[in-house]
């Protein structure tokens, strides 16, 4: 558990992400996958989304950087999300610019079949940065930040696919941090990893918290209790309970949350 000084009532903290009564549908509004969720994610803290499969936690995560735009029939049915005070679904917001500030790490680690160096530099290259020395510097910084530098510094030109699963996932995190986003969204980043690799990624997330605001979806309640400051429990597209992680895990106010955390359902 993270130090409790920052995890007071998170609703009063200066929040970076405001989600206000958000409704979301995958089928043009016929049925809602997310049904009126409101929560705030404080800056430079880790917010965990937990809940049984199909509860809408990954969908909500993908709303935060508008990855759901790629699903043709998706639609925000009500409410809003604002990041740094800006409504991200406003007509003058470019999803491309948004995603440069709100990065994402996926469930299945997905490095490109390129060299380790090129993977980390990818985000910078597509932003048009060509200068070799600034790329080198950014790659080194990102890899150091992802605690991967010492393991790969001698094989930067080798294929990223030669790394172990845990290393590949940390490489993906480095790829995301290299473009210096404000927010990093993580969609079950450890679900394809073994316990040792998971421990390393969790350690990394705790480190990254100094520089980034992190929202993480996880199936593992132990993981949520270990790494997050705030935890939101979702069930069937609704937010059941949201609060400081200590409180959610030690003294939840809703019976359903307690049942889920203690393993009685889900």
């Amino acid at each position: 558990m993270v130090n409790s000084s920052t995890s007071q009532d998170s609703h009063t903290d200066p929040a970076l992400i405001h989600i206000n009564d958000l409704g979301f549908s995958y089928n043009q509004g016929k049925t809602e996958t997310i049904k009126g969720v409101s929560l705030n994610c404080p800056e430079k803290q880790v917010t965990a989304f937990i809940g049984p499969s199909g509860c809408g936690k990954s969908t909500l995560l993908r709303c935060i950087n508008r990855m759901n735009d790629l699903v043709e029939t998706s639609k925000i049915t009500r409410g809003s999300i604002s990041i740094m005070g800006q409504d991200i679904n406003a007509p003058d917001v470019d999803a491309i610019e948004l995603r440069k500030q709100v990065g994402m790490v996926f469930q299945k680690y997905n490095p490109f079949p390129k060299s380790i160096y090129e993977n980390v530099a990818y985000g910078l290259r597509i932003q048009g940065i060509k200068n070799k020395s600034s790329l080198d510097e950014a790659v080194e910084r990102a890899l150091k930040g992802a605690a991967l530098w010492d393991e790969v510094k001698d094989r930067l030109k080798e294929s990223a696919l030669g790394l172990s699963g845990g290393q590949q996932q940390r490489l993906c995190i480095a790829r995301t941090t290299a473009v210096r986003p404000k927010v990093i969204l993580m969609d079950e980043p450890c679900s394809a990893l073994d316990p040792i690799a998971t421990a390393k990624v969790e350690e990394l997330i705790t480190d990254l918290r100094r520089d980034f605001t992190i929202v993480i979806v996880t199936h593992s309640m132990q993981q949520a209790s270990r790494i997050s400051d705030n935890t939101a429990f979702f069930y069937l597209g609704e937010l059941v309970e949201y609060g400081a992680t200590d409180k959610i895990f030690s003294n939840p106010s809703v019976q359903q949350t307690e049942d889920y955390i203690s393993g009685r359902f889900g």
Partner: protein
Amino acid sequence: MSESINPSAAQSDNPFKQKKGWLQRKEKIGINLLRLATYIIIACALFIFSDIFIKGMPTLVTSEVPYINTEFFTESPQILTVWHDSAGNEYSMTQEKYDIWLTENPTIEVTDIHNYTASGGGILGPLLGTALLVTICMAIALFIGVSAAIYLSEYCGTGKLMSLIRLAILNLAGVPSIVYALFGWGVFCYMAPNYVTEISDRSLFAFSIGGGYISFEGWEQSLLAGGCTLAIMVLPVIITACEESLRAVPKGFREAAFALGATRWQTIRTAVLPYALPGVLTASVLGITRVAGETAPIMLTAAASDKSKLPTAVLADEGFWSFLTQSVQALPFHIYTLAKFPDSEYVKPMQYGSILVFLLVVMGFSLLSMVLRSRIRKRIKW
């Protein structure tokens, strides 16, 4: 206590003894039928290949160094003249050599002269023509096909209209080649815009530009018309195959690129196309095999059965536009021309030689695509 539903079997010498009955016989008959069908196919293929190989090989090779019939590969088809002299000796030479022979031997009386079209000389013209047609066709088809495939797989959605378009493209692949041939004949040979100094009677529409006219009177039977017709014919195959290889690129690559703030085109260019390229390549090699073998479209839109000047010589002498709008010889059409003399022993070497070369070229491309595909399968692990 009730009786066991699975009583212990009565002891016999072999409890698993093979039974003989209708079921067992049916099994055997079935297997042998399937085996027979397979053997028939293999026998057909073996017969065709060995017949062509045995009869065609003597045309391609010689008994002396360099062991390859250079004349066959460095000369274009010419008229073969066969004649007898008064002593009853038989001669067979190309018409040109016959004329020379005549001037050299003015005293010998010549009887029984026969001419055979395109049966002397070599196949350089048709080979070059086919290569050029395929090149032009693939350049056009790959550009349009890959672009369309990218649009279909990456940009447009999955609505009803789009499924209809996909279905239409798939159906186009099944249209007989003679239909494409006639279409290309009508459109490219008689309607396409051409730059001319004098407007022809059949011009649909013309306007003057510079010193000449742009006239919609077509390119006649030409390299360009043939290439375009073949390109349209092979487009459905290329679009479908490219779309498939684009879809085979893992979704994770696209998501990762988008999540890093890449635009759609950046994502396609850097995270999709490079990984779909091997598939596109295989598809285009298969397309080449198909296009190279087509006869009907080439006959109607591009072919000259007899042509003395090589296409490359036209390029050197008359410039690029004349090069594109010249008619060319092509290997399949050359073979078709030769097929008019089914039983002539004088034509046979040319027939079998041409067919063998054609077969080897097409088989070479098929083999290339197979090798490419297996190498891709080995390399890709995501």
